[in-house]
């Protein structure tokens, strides 16, 4: 039950983050036009480089672990692939950008490398996803677009481990699974639960959010046989396409905006409720297990007990101050404290796997948030207390 590692890396919101392969470096967007590269120095993260090329806010970053390339997407409708090359003047390694022709007329919202790192997908507000692959003859990245039947901004994408299928969550309240098969790049994929013949832009699945919320985030399980998505109607859904079964959990607190699978039977979701929640289940059903943010064991914040109500952000010290003033006429004891009772002090914008344990499952996840914090959580340290004891006896 290791305590989470907390780093305050910025005074501004962290839009997104991506680690390099050995987790010694971190690329973040501090909600502006530049990528900041941090290097870990002992217990601190120091900015070592700034990648400036975009001229609007960077919305998403992904760092390919094997080929060590960074791809960035921005509201300026462009994506750049950054590669470390030897600068002949200074004799040092420097990040050099290559422009990707996305051919979109709205902001790029999200980007992810495919598992083989030979393609990447850029989601956009132009009701399209650009699937980019490298054209070695012309020495540039070319894009093919997935368009139909997307009706609104695409907010997130996730690659299937077979390098061909792509899940996308969109503001038209749908999560979809597409084929992003590129003839020159991919071998013929073996049949999966999502389908057998998979030419480009085949729709392998389309799922609605239960109460009309934007689908903020999608994720394939490690095997790729299960899909999870979370939407703005405070719900999270897990799809077994072979079943076919969809498990929808309507949550009591504010919506999730990001999720990541940690094993075939568990995932971590986080968002406006400011704490990462672990879900676990199988083909038989899914349920929330607990929070990674066990504040009851913390020292300074213990004893408030307000979390037991499990109604999310209402449990802040500020809320309690007003409630005490209202119901008891108290105005002194907690005045001046506006701190939330969670580690993150604002919305968590991104949760990603950090390292993998001996059993092949994700052992730790990293989160960044609007509060400028980077937190690394031990996935095993789940506490059910934050969930009002709904699953009191459950052990992990």
């Amino acid at each position, binding site marked *: 039950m290791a305590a989470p590692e907390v780093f305050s890396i910025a005074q501004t919101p962290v839009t997104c983050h991506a680690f390099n392969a050995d987790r010694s470096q971190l690329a973040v967007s501090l909600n502006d036009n530049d990528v900041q590269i941090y290097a870990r120095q002992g217990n601190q993260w120091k900015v070592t480089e700034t990648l400036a090329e975009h001229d609007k806010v960077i919305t998403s970053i992904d760092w390919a672990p094997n080929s060590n390339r960074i791809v960035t997407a921005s509201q300026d409708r462009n994506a750049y692939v950054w590669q470390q090359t030897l600068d002949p003047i200074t004799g040092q390694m420097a990040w050099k950008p290559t422009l990707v022709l996305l051919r979109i007329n709205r902001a790029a919202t999200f980007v992810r490398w495919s598992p083989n790192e030979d393609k990447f997908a850029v989601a956009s507000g132009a009701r399209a996803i650009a699937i980019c692959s490298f054209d070695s003859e012309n020495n540039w990245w070319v894009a093919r677009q997935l368009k139909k039947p997307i*009706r609104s901004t695409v907010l997130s994408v996730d690659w299937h481990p077979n390098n061909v299928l792509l899940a996308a969550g969109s503001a038209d309240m749908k999560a979809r699974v597409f084929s992003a098969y590129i003839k020159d790049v991919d071998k013929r994929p073996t049949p999966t639960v999502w389908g057998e013949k998979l030419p480009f832009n085949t729709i392998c699945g389309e799922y609605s959010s239960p*109460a*009309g919320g934007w689908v903020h985030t999608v994720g394939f399980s490690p095997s790729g046989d299960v899909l999870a998505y979370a939407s703005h109607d*405070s*719900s999270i859904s897990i799809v077994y396409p072979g079943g076919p079964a969809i498990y929808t959990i*309507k949550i*009591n607190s*504010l919506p999730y905006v990001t999720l990541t699978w940690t094993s075939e039977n568990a995932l971590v979701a986080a968002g406006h409720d400011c704490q990462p929640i672990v879900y676990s289940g199988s083909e038989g059903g899914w349920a929330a297990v607990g929070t990674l943010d066990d504040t009851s064991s913390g020292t300074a914040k213990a004893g408030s007990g307000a979390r037991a109500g499990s109604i*999310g952000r209402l449990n802040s010290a500020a809320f309690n101050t007003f409630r005490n003033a209202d119901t008891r006429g108290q105005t002194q004891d907690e005045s001046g404290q506006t701190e939330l009772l969670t580690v993150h002090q604002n919305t968590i914008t991104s949760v990603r796997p950090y390292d993998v344990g001996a059993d092949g499952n994700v052992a730790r996840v990293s989160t960044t948030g609007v509060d400028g914090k980077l937190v690394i959580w031990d996935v095993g340290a789940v506490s059910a207390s934050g969930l009002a004891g709904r699953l009191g006896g459950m052990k992990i």
Partner: protein
Amino acid sequence: MSYRKIDIDVYDEDVLQESELYEPDPRDPAQVLSDAKQKQAAVRSSLAKGDIPGALDIALDSAPYGPDVDEAKNLTLQTVVSILNSTKSSEIPAVVKALSQDSQDTLMKYIYKGMGMPGWGDVSGSVLLGWHEKLTEVAGTGCIVRVMTDRRTV
């Protein structure tokens, strides 16, 4: 000319229509209205027996939504509010807990709709606020978020 007031959507051939945002109610509007009237009668008889949970279950089941059913919507709102008004405040927490999650979401929709009706604040404002408080304690902020996102407005 104020450019902000130009409706740019009329120049977009592929504009996203309101009707694409949710599944339409399969029932015919006349059918929806007669269903609402039947439910009103059933709720009255349940209330006469003092069966609040039963009455709420009937009223919140397959609530009317979408266009062309304004009369049924108003009727159902009146039906729901009549139940809320005839519940003792000490009974509210138990009633709310007994509802299914879908019914809780639908009840929250009617509470907000009631709060939005002009002039209702003086008549049933305190009742609606009391129910809202108890329902939020049980169903959380998530329930309120679902009411705000759901295009199937009642």
